[in-house]
Structure formats: C-alpha cells, structure tokens
C-alpha cells in the first residue's frame, strides 16, 4: 500500500514493493531452487564486493568507472537472486547479505580470491565472466520462470564484463615484459579455482532442467579460454585444482575478511538507514 501525506511525501517503506521478479507468476521457490539461487547470488555478491574496492584505486579513472559499473551489474544480479532465494523462507536480500555467517555462504573460491594487483583482478574477472556468460546463456531456458528472467537480463551484461576482461588480458599479455610476466602469474594464481565452477553435485542432479549442469559449461569455457589465451600467446595454465568446497560452505581463508568488511555496518547498527 503506498501512502502519501498532504505534502506528497512518500516513504519507501510504505511502498508496496513488488516481488521484483519475472513478469509472470512469482511463486516462492522450492528449497532446492532457493539453494541454487543462493549459490549464484553469493558468487555475484562477493565478486561485486571485491570489485568495489578498486574504485579510486584502479590504474586509471576509466578503470575505476569500468570496475565500478561491473560491480554494480553484479550487485543487481545478486539482489534479484538473493531476493528470490530468500522468498523461500521469508528472508530479505539484506538478511541474506548481512546476517549470514561464513559457513552459510555458498560462493565459490574463485570470487573470494584477493584483488591482488590489477592483473590478478583481471585474471579473476576473465575466468568469472567467461563462466557467467556460459552459465546465464543456458539458464535463460530454465524451467523456472524467475531464474530464466534473471538470466536473460544478466546474460547481456556479463557479455560486456567478459569483453572488458579479454581486452585487458590481451593488452597486459602483449604489453611490456613486466605486464606480461604479471598477467601470466595472475592466470596461474587463479587457475586452481577454475575446476570448482564446473563441479556437479546432488543439488544439481535434483534440479534437472531448472539448474544449469556446471560440467556441461566446461567445453564452452575452454573454447573461449583457448581462443583468447592463444591470441595473447599465453599457455593455458596447467595447475593442480584446489580442493575448494564453497558450495558446501567450506571457504577459503579470504571470505571471513570480505564478510567482516561487508557486514560490519549492518551488524553494528541494525536497521540503520540514510
């Protein structure tokens, strides 16, 4: 119910906010669909939080803006996905973002890896965006109308994110000896976390047709990686995969620090607003 007093002041709390989902019916998801949306939402949220740290610290102002915009897109995906996940048990997107502890997060280890130098962030972006392009392209045909609608929107955006990362991989690898060395090292540093993205598990098995089967995205990912790294004259890293277990709530050492910074204000001052 929206209300407006004589001076036509409208407060946001009084607005009846829509479920903010697909055009069709916005039924609450099942426990499994909510768990799946939580995974995707957590990946987007943590990556967004990480990229936000570059604003005012990027190598040039255009990159401040670029990484800030990419973070904003990812935050948009996270909000839609977490809102949908939370509609299963009545939690809001803020409940899920600010009031869950580390073990309740389902993000993958890739997005938890530190920003490092610029090349490290670009290597992480290259892997994450290439994965997300494959993921959302398939999720558009999900039998779940809400996931399909979120994916349709996200698919176009992550395509831009991948272009951005590809351009920087090419530029850094083809730049000076130093930039090339840093790019190569950064790719090697993030590559142990690639495998986790493509692992299937029982949840995925139960959501056949609704969730995207991660293992089926690997070929598309590998094709893009070999094309881009081939163009850059860089070998595809050959490293042992990490035993990452983010989908079970077992996280890398980095997540607790990220959450501490992201959640401190909301937890110290519950209900704070401006």
């Amino acid at each position, binding site marked *: *119910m*929206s209300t*407006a007093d004589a001076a*036509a002041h*409208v407060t*946001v709390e009084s*607005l*009846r906010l*829509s*479920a*903010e*989902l*697909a*055009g*069709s019916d916005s039924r609450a998801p099942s426990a499994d669909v909510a768990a799946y949306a939580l995974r995707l939402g957590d990946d987007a949220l943590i990556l967004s939080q990480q990229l936000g740290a570059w604003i005012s610290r990027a190598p040039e102002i*255009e*990159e401040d*803006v*670029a990484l*800030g*915009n*990419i973070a*904003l*897109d*990812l*935050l*948009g*995906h996270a*909000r*839609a996905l977490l809102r949908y996940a939370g509609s299963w048990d009545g939690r809001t997107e803020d409940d899920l973002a600010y009031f869950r502890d580390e073990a309740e997060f389902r993000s993958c280890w890739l997005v938890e890896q530190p920003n490092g130098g610029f090349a490290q962030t670009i290597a992480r972006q290259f892997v994450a965006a290439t994965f997300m392009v494959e993921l959302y392209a398939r999720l558009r045909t999900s039998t779940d*109308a809400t996931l*399909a*609608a*979120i994916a*349709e*929107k*996200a698919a*176009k*955006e992550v*395509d*831009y994110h*991948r*272009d*951005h990362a*590809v*351009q920087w991989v090419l530029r850094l690898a083809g730049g000076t000896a130093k930039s090339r060395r840093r790019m190569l090292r950064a790719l090697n540093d993030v590559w142990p976390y690639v495998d986790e993205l493509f692992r299937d598990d029982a949840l995925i098995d139960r959501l056949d047709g609704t969730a995207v089967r991660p293992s089926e995205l690997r070929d598309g990912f590998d094709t*893009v990686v070999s*094309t*881009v790294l081939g*163009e850059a004259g860089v070998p595809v890293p050959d490293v042992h995969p990490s035993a990452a277990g983010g989908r079970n709530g077992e996280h890398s050492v980095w997540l607790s620090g990220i959450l501490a910074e992201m959640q401190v204000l909301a937890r110290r001052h519950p209900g704070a607003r401006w």
Partner: protein
Amino acid sequence: MTAPAAIGRRTAPGEPCSEPRADRARKVAARIVDPEIPVLTIDDLGILRTVEVDGDCVRVDITPTYSGCPAIDAIRDDLVLALTAAGYAEVDVRLVLSPAWSTDWISEKGRRALTAYGIAPPTGRRAASGPIPLRLSVRCPRCGSLDTRELSRFGSTACKALYSCGACQEPFDHFKAF
C-alpha cells in the same frame, strides 16, 4: 492537475478497468523522466511497460535498463508521487525483468533527444559477439564526424560508454547498443 476521471465514478474492486482511465494513467506515467538523462522520458527510453487501472488503484510495470541501475528506485518513487498526485489512491510499481530491455526499445524521439543532449544514441546491433567483438562507428553528437574512438566501454552510468571525437576533439557519452 484536472482529472475528471479521478473524481468520477469509482470502479468496484475487481471490475475490469476502462480503457480511457488506463490511457490517462499511462500519460501521467509516461511523463516521468530518467533522473540520469533528464531529456528522456521513461516512455521514450522504453522502460515503461504496462499501466493498468483498477478502480482508484494503478499498477505500473517498468523494466530496468541494467540489473543494478540505481535510477530505477528514483523512477519508482517518481511514479508513485506523480500518480498519487493524479488522484490514484494506490500505486503499485512492479519491476519486471523479462523480456529484457534492449536499446532497440528507445523511441525515435528519444534518439533525437539524446543526440541533442550530447549523447550519441545506440548505433544498431553489435557487429559480432564473440570473444573479440567488432563494433560499428559512433557518430559524434556535436559535429557529426565518424572519426571517433572509444575511451572506455564504461561511462558515467552503466548504460553509457565514453568516447572522444577526432574532428572536434570533444569527449562525449555514447548510449551503448545493448
């Protein structure tokens, strides 16, 4: 605002809305501008979907340009204010994601307004999508030259890229084809 419909007969809840009432509500909604690009109404931008009236309740469906676009909250508030002022007791603004907005939905009037405002409108579809995309030239909104180059894919808002003109040397925003 003169609003004969608002002081006229009240439709009973559940009764289907009459066409003129929906038209009137749509006219009110269509006047709201994008706070980031104030020369563009949400109708010209193509993010105003449906406007339905039921009694003195109105439901407006809008769609975001980009998932994280912060302007959408301001637009939602503006719609509630304008429609409340126009006499609707209840205003329900819904954000719909599907079908996803595309720059193809910007009207011709909107494109002309963008150019006049100094923002190069989207230039057709991207020539290729793949790992290494090709793009069409963008015309400088100030001098009309095609001798322009992209400074950054990401501009002052999510929907714009930053360009520079080789002929008049001016930087300008380009509304990305999306």
